[in-house]
């Protein structure tokens, strides 16, 4: 009895798998039969699946293609209804079935082309939708770890898809005209999308102009395509800003680049930037200090005093006393009754006891005279420090010109060779730009791009720059070779990242984890699978939701040249950046400046004075004199009329 019971149990145990296998076989046969019956749609679906696999498309791209077939299907149904004697609704309802029947009849008769044409209107959208469903199922099953022959299949699939996606993106950026600098909607196009997580993107990676008006961070080691990306972003900012300005939607853009590396490489990039920006619409690109100059002495006197004192390094403790003495003396020299100094030489000439006494002889207060008497013994030391400062700053800040004179400024700071010089120059340039922005900026929308700012950040921390810029309404884009290069301490780095409302561009870097962590995590399903015997895994196991990082650090480490990850609001878009190819450099470049010769102003004027203003008027250190042309103009047209007074008629 017991043996009979055991036989029955064994029989049931053997019968159950056999029944399951038979059921599966029947299901598979039915599926194959259905797919064969729906051959036209099946062929399209297979093609769509193959294309999506080969190009690394997301399933929504196939679904979108199926949706775009809607007008074709509507036209086909309308045509069928019009041609049929039956009621329209009946003709429409029967149309897919009739097309299917006609397909098989024509195919059987050997008219394959006609058969395909007959079945195409319903088969193409159906096949694309079927392909989208199948592709989505495949991706989801692999991502969850349930698909594939082994648990490692998911990783292999992802690597393969990344290669396909990169290949497709490279093909897109290689196609002429496929990646414009800006879209018709005014978006800045960085390149072709490789892959996105948490961002809704199309084939092109585009960001809004307003993101360029917010702070951004760019991180990438040398040789990863950082300059190419920056040039593209700058050119896009200029092009989009000019288009907005022309449409009356905003003020003209002003781009100020501080290249803190210096050297021959910076000059090569400056020339490339000049060509690229000109093609983007910038009418004038000034390269400081090689070809254009700025006038530090155009700062308002009180701000000039502050800037000059800040440019000198002070100690703390007892040295603070000397800092105060220095500030008092500089204030006396700058805010003298005869006006502020017009050049570095003028300032140095003022730091003499005799000059200060003479300047304040008739106009100074008792306090001024007392200060001159008491502090005059320090004047020689203060003058010595400012003589050193003037030598470091060079002539680039002594000439005429202002940020408003050009559409873009490329400022080269020798941060590699002469760190103290670059630090002083950076501080002065930022103060000048801040003054320009605070003075209304002539209605310009300013982007300050700082490349390799770590070279000079000792005197001006980036976070301080960020916060100061925010109050002035200008956007700052800081780039560094690594996360650690942004600032000396973790706290400062975090403050910088927190202020980067315009997003973070991350190129290949050996230690991306701190930055990738900023993108956060997302929910994903992780599945464990039961190993039957190597290498066969059962399709059984357990799944559980887990948080995985939005940005995979391993991908960042493996990014190729010209590839970047754009991290913004908890999502990431991997971009194949399109390199901007500018035209050749203009012929007939200006003659090289002799050593020691002051650079020309950005405005390009030979001089900006006239006899009307007189040699002593204004800031004579920033301009020369032009000859008086009144004789000929008076003879031809008469003297210049007096301007009408306030009570003059209309």
């Amino acid at each position, binding site marked *: 009895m017991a043996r009979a019971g055991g036989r029955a149990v064994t029989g049931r145990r053997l019968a159950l798998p056999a029944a399951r296998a038979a059921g599966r076989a029947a299901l598979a046969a039915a599926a194959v039969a259905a797919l064969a019956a729906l051959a036209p749609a099946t062929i399209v679906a297979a093609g769509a699946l193959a294309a999506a696999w080969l190009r690394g498309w997301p399933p929504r791209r196939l679904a979108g293609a199926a949706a775009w077939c809607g007008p074709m299907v509507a036209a086909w149904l309308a045509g069928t209804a019009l041609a049929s004697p039956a009621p329209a609704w009946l003709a429409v309802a029967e149309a897919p079935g009739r097309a299917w029947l006609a397909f098989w009849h024509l195919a059987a008769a050997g008219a394959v082309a006609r058969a395909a044409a007959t079945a195409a209107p319903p088969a193409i959208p159906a096949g694309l939708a079927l392909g989208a469903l199948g592709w989505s199922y495949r991706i989801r099953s692999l991502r969850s770890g349930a698909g594939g022959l082994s648990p490692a299949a998911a990783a292999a699939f992802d690597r393969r898809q990344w290669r396909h996606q990169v290949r497709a993106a490279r093909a897109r950026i290689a196609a002429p005209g496929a990646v414009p600098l800006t879209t018709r909607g005014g978006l800045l196009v960085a390149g072709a999308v490789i892959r996105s997580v948490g961002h809704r993107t199309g084939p092109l990676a585009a960001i809004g102009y307003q993101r360029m008006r917010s702070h951004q961070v760019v991180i990438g080691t040398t040789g990863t395509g950082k300059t190419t990306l920056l040039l593209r972003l700058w050119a896009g900012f200029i092009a989009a800003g000019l288009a907005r300005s022309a449409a009356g939607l905003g003020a003209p853009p002003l781009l100020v680049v501080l290249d803190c590396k210096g050297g021959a490489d910076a000059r090569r990039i400056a020339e490339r930037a000049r*060509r690229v920006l*000109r093609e983007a619409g910038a*009418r*004038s*690109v*000034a*390269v400081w200090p*090689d*070809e*254009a100059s700025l006038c530090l002495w155009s700062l308002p006197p009180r701000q000039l005093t502050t800037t000059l004192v800040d440019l000198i390094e002070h100690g703390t403790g007892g040295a603070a006393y000397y800092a105060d003495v220095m500030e008092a003396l500089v204030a006396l020299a700058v805010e003298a009754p005869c006006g502020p100094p017009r050049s570095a030489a003028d300032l140095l000439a003022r730091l003499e006891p005799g000059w200060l006494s003479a300047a304040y002889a008739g106009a100074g207060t008792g306090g001024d005279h007392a200060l001159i008497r008491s502090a005059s013994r320090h004047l020689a030391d203060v003058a010595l420090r400012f003589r050193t400062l003037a030598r470091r700053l060079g002539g680039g800040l002594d000439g*005429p*010109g202002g940020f408003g*004179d*050009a559409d873009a400024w490329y400022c080269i700071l020798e941060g590699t060779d002469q760190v103290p010089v670059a630090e002083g120059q950076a501080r002065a340039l930022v103060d000048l730009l801040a003054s320009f922005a605070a003075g209304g900026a002539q209605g310009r929308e300013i982007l300050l791009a700082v490349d390799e700012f770590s070279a000079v950040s000792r005197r001006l921390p980036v976070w301080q720059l960020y916060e100061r810029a925010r109050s002035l309404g200008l956007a700052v884009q800081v780039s560094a070779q690594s996360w650690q290069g942004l600032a000396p301490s973790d706290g400062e780095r975090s403050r910088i990242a927190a202020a980067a409302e315009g997003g973070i561009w991350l190129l290949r870097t050996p230690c991306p984890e701190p930055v990738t962590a900023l993108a956060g995590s997302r929910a994903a399903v992780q599945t464990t699978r039961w190993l039957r015997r190597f290498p066969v895994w059962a399709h059984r196991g357990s799944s559980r939701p887990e948080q995985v990082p939005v940005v995979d650090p391993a991908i960042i480490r493996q990014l190729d040249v010209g590839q970047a990850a754009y991290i913004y609001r908890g999502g990431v878009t991997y971009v194949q950046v399109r390199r901007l190819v500018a*035209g050749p*450099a*203009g*012929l*007939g*470049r*200006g003659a090289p*400046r002799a050593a020691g010769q002051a*650079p*020309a*102003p*950005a*405005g*390009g*004027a*030979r001089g*900006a*004075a*006239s006899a*009307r*203003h007189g040699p002593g008027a*204004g*800031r004579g250190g*920033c*301009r020369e004199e*032009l*000859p*008086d*042309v009144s*004789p*000929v*103009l*008076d*003879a*031809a*047209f*008469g*003297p*210049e*009329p007096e*301007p*009408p007074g306030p009570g003059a008629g209309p």
Partner: protein
Amino acid sequence: MAGAARAPGAAAARESAGLAFTGEMYGVQLDHLAAVLGVPQRRAAAIVARWRRAGLAEAQRLGPGPRWAWLTKAGLARCGLPFAPGAPGLARLAHLRAVTAARLALAGTPQYAAGAARWRSERRIRARIGGRLGLREHVPDAEVAWPDGAPVGWAGECWAIEAEITPKTVARTAAIMRELLTRTGDYGCPPAEVLVPGRPARHDRAIYLCSPPALPVAARARARLGDLGARVEIRPLPPGAAWPAPGGAP
């Protein structure tokens, strides 16, 4: 006898110069042409009639004052001027008259003759530009070049001439002044040469010749330029720029 032989030659030279002047300025009114030719207005009318018979010019009353004369295609070809022929635009007649008057007034000064200055008209500038005029480019009404070595203090300078009859906005006028004073390249040069920081500006000065309503606007625009405004000279339009009183026209 020799003097009698020179006189017709000199008259022919003057007529040739008048023909070229007419071509360069788009068109001129007979009172201005008479001043160019150095003859009474009635004689100028007869000369224009001869040009018309030769197919070199057309003349017609287009607006107030005397008739306007302009060159035909044959006339432009005779002068070697590479311009598209056509009658002066009605909307620009007052402006063209003002520019012509300014040219005549400047040419009448001893410094102009002594300095051998050269007037480059807007039509000549536009012909050099061809169809490549940028959307944001402003073309002056004329340029006056003073050759190096001329016996004047401003030898070597190039001036941009602007005749302002109707006032623009201060912002627009200031923008034009700034553009004229910062431009570095010649008109028609490659875009990369238009404004190259560090190079000398093309125009050392901008000469604004203004009607009474436009004068305060130009003055305020100049004041907006700051230091750059020192290179802007403002003068009234010469008397010949206004339409002549009715009744004097032939």
